[in-house]
């Protein structure tokens, strides 16, 4: 097993930087996800690691050795493509055996290793079928077996689950995790699905506009995202720009006033996040951390800090809970909150935002348009 070091890698297509100074390390045997919306450069980064495209700046090292001068067929990688890219005119057996035959592995060893790989990915006996005779999930497994049978130093996965239906996707997620654990292969996984990234990874690298916006283990990135962009991408529904007030209160919180609104929220933090200029921050809180209850119209001072009265604007029932859009005076946009209880549209509710649940986030640099990436 080898680690992968991507340092300062850039790639431009014509006038556009597809990736710009991207750096991260995938430790040996780990599972790293590149997470971001389409066009953020995550697939380009994967293609640069694979060697399908030449990088313009920076360096990729696999197992400590620079690989930028090596063509893809000398890098000893396994790649699983979004559309599987199985060879249509070859049987499952020949597809899986392709890499072994290029490595001049003996016939008997090829047969046993192909059988082993097919077994590892949990495929039934389909070795003599052609790809078009298989279901999407089966093709996915063949693609995995084909990539793993050569015992690659690194396994690269380009949105391999996005062509499967929801049920199969959830099942393959467990399968991927099991296979990665059993083989221990260093894996780099490209996805736009935060849930996939959270469930599979040891490390998540969030990308935005060709750059790395944050990199951390799933738990850390979930609990304390590095920036407002990362929080937004990881499903923090409520994000408001704010300004940190002077001095800490004696209960260990700081007062943050919401911009374009009168509300002042108390946040359990001793200082703004690193790299925050001029006390400007973004306040973030997940919908499920907001407590919702019926408002009795009484003064809310007795409820402690961060109690807000509001009116239900709209709600959607999602099975496990009800998601509310609540208009609160003093906030520039409606709050998204979830509750078990049902309130009709127009109901007066009281929201409580626990100071410990509010995140102080670093605001992102002003949104860069594509022209700024030139």
């Amino acid at each position, binding site marked *: 097993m080898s680690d992968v070091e991507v340092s300062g890698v850039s790639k431009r297509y014509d006038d556009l930087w597809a990736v710009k100074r991207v750096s991260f390390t995938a430790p040996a045997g780990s599972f790293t996800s590149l997470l971001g919306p389409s066009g953020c450069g995550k697939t380009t980064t994967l293609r640069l690691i*694979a060697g399908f495209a030449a990088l313009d700046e920076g360096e990729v090292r696999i197992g400590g050795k620079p690989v930028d001068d090596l063509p893809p*067929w000398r*890098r000893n*990688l396994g790649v699983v493509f979004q559309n599987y*890219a199985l*060879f*249509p005119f070859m049987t499952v057996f020949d597809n899986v055996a*392709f890499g072994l035959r290029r490595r001049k592995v003996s016939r008997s060893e090829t047969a046993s290793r192909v059988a082993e790989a097919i077994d590892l990915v949990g495929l039934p006996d389909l070795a003599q079928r052609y790809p*078009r005779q298989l279901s999407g999930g089966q093709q996915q497994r063949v693609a995995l077996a084909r990539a793993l049978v050569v015992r690659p130093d690194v396994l690269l996965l380009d949105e391999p689950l996005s062509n499967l239906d929801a049920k199969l996707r959830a099942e393959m997620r467990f399968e991927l995790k099991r296979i990665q654990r059993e083989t221990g292969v260093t894996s780099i996984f490209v996805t736009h699905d935060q849930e996939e990234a959270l469930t599979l990874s040891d490390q998540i690298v969030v990308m935005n506009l060709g750059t790395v916006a944050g990199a951390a283990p799933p738990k850390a990135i979930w609990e304390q995202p590095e920036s407002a962009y990362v929080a937004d991408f990881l499903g923090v529904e409520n994000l408001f720009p704010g300004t940190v007030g002077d001095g800490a209160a004696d209960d260990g919180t700081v007062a943050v006033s919401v911009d374009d609104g009168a509300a002042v929220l108390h946040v359990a933090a001793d200082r703004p996040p690193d790299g925050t200029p001029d006390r400007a921050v973004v306040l973030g809180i997940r919908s499920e951390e907001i407590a919702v209850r019926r408002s009795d119209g009484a003064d809310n001072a007795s409820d402690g800090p961060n109690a807000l009265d509001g009116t239900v604007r709209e709600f959607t029932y999602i099975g496990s809970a009800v998601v509310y859009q609540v208009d609160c005076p003093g906030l520039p946009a409606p709050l998204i909150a979830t509750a078990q209880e049902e309130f009709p549209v127009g109901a007066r509710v009281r929201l409580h935002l626990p100071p410990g649940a509010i995140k102080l986030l670093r605001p992102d640099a002003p949104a860069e348009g594509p022209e700024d990436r030139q």
Partner: protein
Amino acid sequence: MTAGRARGSGGRFPASLATPVLLAFAVFIVAPCIMLLVKGLEPTAETGEWPDFTNVLGVFDSKVGQQALNRTIRISLIVTVICLLAGYPVALFIARCGPRWRGLLLAVVIFPFLISAVVRAFGWTVLLGDSGLANKGLIALGLIDRPITLVQNEIGIIVGETHLLMPYMILSLLAVLQRIDPNLKHAAESLGASPVSVFWRIVIPLTLPGLLTGTLLVFSLAMTAFATPFLLGGGRTPILTTLLYDYAFTLFDWRLAASIGIVLLILGILFVTVHRFVSSRGMRSYG
């Protein structure tokens, strides 16, 4: 899957749309074929009975007929091989070009279709003549001492037919080359296949359908070409089609002409049958 759906849902309606063409087919292709058979197998002697195979077999027996037959097959094979070997790299190159260059190059490829056979043949006669550009070039390069005959013989026919038929090969190949998923090449590369290996093991098998269509088109068109071999072959290199013309319009022997027609028909059917057999074996996995 899509093909199956198209076949399933569109049963009756397209059949009615196809009727006019099928009728024209019956009248203008099947009927002449029957007339050809009637005429070609007409008994020579007054007392003979139909069918009489003497004339058809006579084509194989006579020296002129045999030579023409061999020459026809030889030229068609050579033209097919040249079109394949020369056309494949061109198709590969065009497939790799950006959209703008691709359009321009396609226009160049299709250009032979836009020139009449007479003008094309005249052009080649000038280029390949004793004092033409080809001979001058070869002399200048020191490859030959004095002009060699490049036209009014088999070489002329081969050059002319290759020029005429190359577009069919290139367009057939391009149709499949442009549909190849680039990820298939990347997948093969990542598994350790060098570019040469990717070409032989991935690109060639993926282009097999276009390759087979191209060879079928070029070979059958080469075998039945008339104007180009007539104009570039001269009188001393008859092939089946020019021989047929001689019998019909110089000797006015319609019976002999029809029997050559039957031989061409048999050759065509034979080639298509062999081709279909090879295709069905080679493409079994394409479904």
